[in-house]
């Protein structure tokens, strides 16, 4: 069978400083892409290595992508981090860099002109990618409300507004800010906070939010039915819902005393908080940060 395949590749080429020196603000590149099957919720995948991602739900059927390239390669904070990474380099890497510098002796480096942004549509999945090692980019993307999102950014913020579909989002350095979302949501952020304001909580599938260094701050509708499984290793848990934290039910018993061993009982290490009698399962994992569970006003 001939595979029906709709493949659209937009390679957006942008030229550096000289070209845009006169522009007041960095110029935006814009691409409009439609899903091959607009009747079904499509998926948007974005993979970024620095910069920011903002996704907004809107009334239309197409996906509108706007990319603004940053003037500098990296922001100040990012430069600091790059310096730190420099210090942490091991001998092997330093030797490699020295060898490269020796090779390029007496020559000057040319700036790479392509920014390497690619937009692709295949089987109702639109993927947006930026080549590694290029300038940071701020992406603003408008999507139909029901779109499924898969967003990842190795350094920088991710913002999502008004999207009802499943959201899978991770950023090494947050913050991750979700507003007017319904879930299911899987978010993970190692060095920043996660903030999620739910318009409602889609029942059925479980959700999970994990932050290592930052806080987790979620706002749920007052009448939501939810079972929160909470793990806060070092932080505290705050809420204005009428609920209690109870150790969860799973229990393991071990008796090795007959063989000269020990006896121990272990409980599953999460706590459970039922809101309005319990319902959709939401896991909150924080390591250092606090967890805030707010009731929507």
């Amino acid at each position: 069978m001939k595979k029906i395949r709709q493949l659209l590749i937009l390679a957006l080429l942008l030229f550096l400083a000289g070209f845009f020196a006169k522009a007041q603000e960095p110029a935006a590149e814009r691409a409009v892409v439609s899903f091959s099957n607009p009747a079904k919720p499509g998926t948007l995948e974005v993979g970024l290595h620095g910069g920011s991602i903002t996704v907004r739900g809107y009334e239309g059927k197409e996906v509108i992508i706007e990319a603004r390239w940053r003037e500098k390669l990296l922001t100040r904070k990012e430069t600091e981090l790059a310096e730190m990474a420099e210090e942490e380099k091991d001998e092997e890497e330093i030797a490699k860099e020295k060898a490269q510098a020796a090779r390029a002796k007496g020559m000057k480096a040319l700036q790479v002109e392509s920014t390497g942004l690619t937009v692709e549509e295949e089987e109702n999945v639109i993927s947006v990618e930026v080549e590694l090692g290029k300038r940071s980019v701020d992406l603003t993307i408008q999507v139909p409300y029901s779109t499924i999102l898969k967003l990842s950014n190795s350094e920088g913020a991710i913002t999502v507004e008004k999207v009802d579909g499943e959201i899978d989002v991770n950023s090494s350095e947050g913050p991750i800010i979700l507003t007017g979302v319904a879930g299911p949501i899987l978010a993970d952020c190692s060095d920043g906070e996660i903030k999620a304001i739910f318009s409602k909580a889609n029942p059925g599938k479980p959700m999970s939010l994990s932050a290592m260094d930052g806080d987790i701050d979620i706002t749920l509708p007052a009448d939501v039915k939810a079972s929160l499984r909470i793990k806060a290793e070092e932080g505290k848990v705050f809420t204005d819902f009428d609920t209690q934290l109870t150790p969860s039910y799973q229990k393991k018993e071990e008796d090795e005393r007959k063989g000269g061993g020990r006896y121990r009982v272990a409980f599953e290490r999460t706590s459970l908080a039922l809101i309005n009698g319990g319902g959709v399962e939401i896991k909150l994992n924080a390591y250092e940060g606090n967890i805030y569970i707010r009731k929507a006003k």
Partner: protein
Amino acid sequence: MNCEKTREKFADYLVGDVDEKSLAEVQTHLAACPACRGELESLSAIWTKLGVLPREQPSSALRQRFYAMLEAYKEGMEKERTRASFGQAVSRWVKRFMPRRPVYQFALSIILLASGLGGGYWMSSNRPAVKREITALKQEVNDMHGLVAVTFLQKASPSDRLMGVNWSSRIAEPDEKILQTLLDTLNHDLNVNVRLAAVDALYLFYNYPQVREGLVNSLAQQTSPHVQLALIDLLVEIRERRAVEALEELMQNKKLHSRVRQRAEMGLAQLS
């Protein structure tokens, strides 16, 4: 005014309940549109026919039927009353056998309760068929949980896979396949949240040697600092001494997150 809007007005038009403006509009449209004229004619024909239908008069038989029904109802009520007094008779009969003193009443109820429990226990334990059936049923539920878990773990959506991990933690005695699937999830799943859930699920099965070994080996494969932390915590908690080597190896990595390094050092101290 188009055909659709005109036809909406027909009912009002026929009973004469339209204001002058609408009336004029309907009439202009009718003059121009033969289709609507035809529609109105057939409607008004039905309307007049409805008007001349004779009014239904109750027949004399109706009166008779009504009284027969009333009589039947009265009879039914009478029967109900006699049945109630029969119930009272039964309870009086039971009362004669009931001991007067509360102490005896209490003793009697204890005896009845004990014999009920004993009988139930005897029935369930002395019938191997039932016992076998229960074991088979338990096994079936276990297998079903496993099947659901494995199916969901292979889905594309991360929240489905998370559900798969949650299902697997309901299994009382997981077989090798389920344990292996969970370990694969821990090592290869693209989503950090799913991997973290796999750590929690595997914690419940740590007394299986396969799991202990898998957890130790997994440490080197993890790239997310959060999963690394969760794994170190787990290995320290189950006092897995083989983890010492894995932890030392992990700390060789120069790019290790400072917090993970700190925790790994603490873990090493606790384990050795």
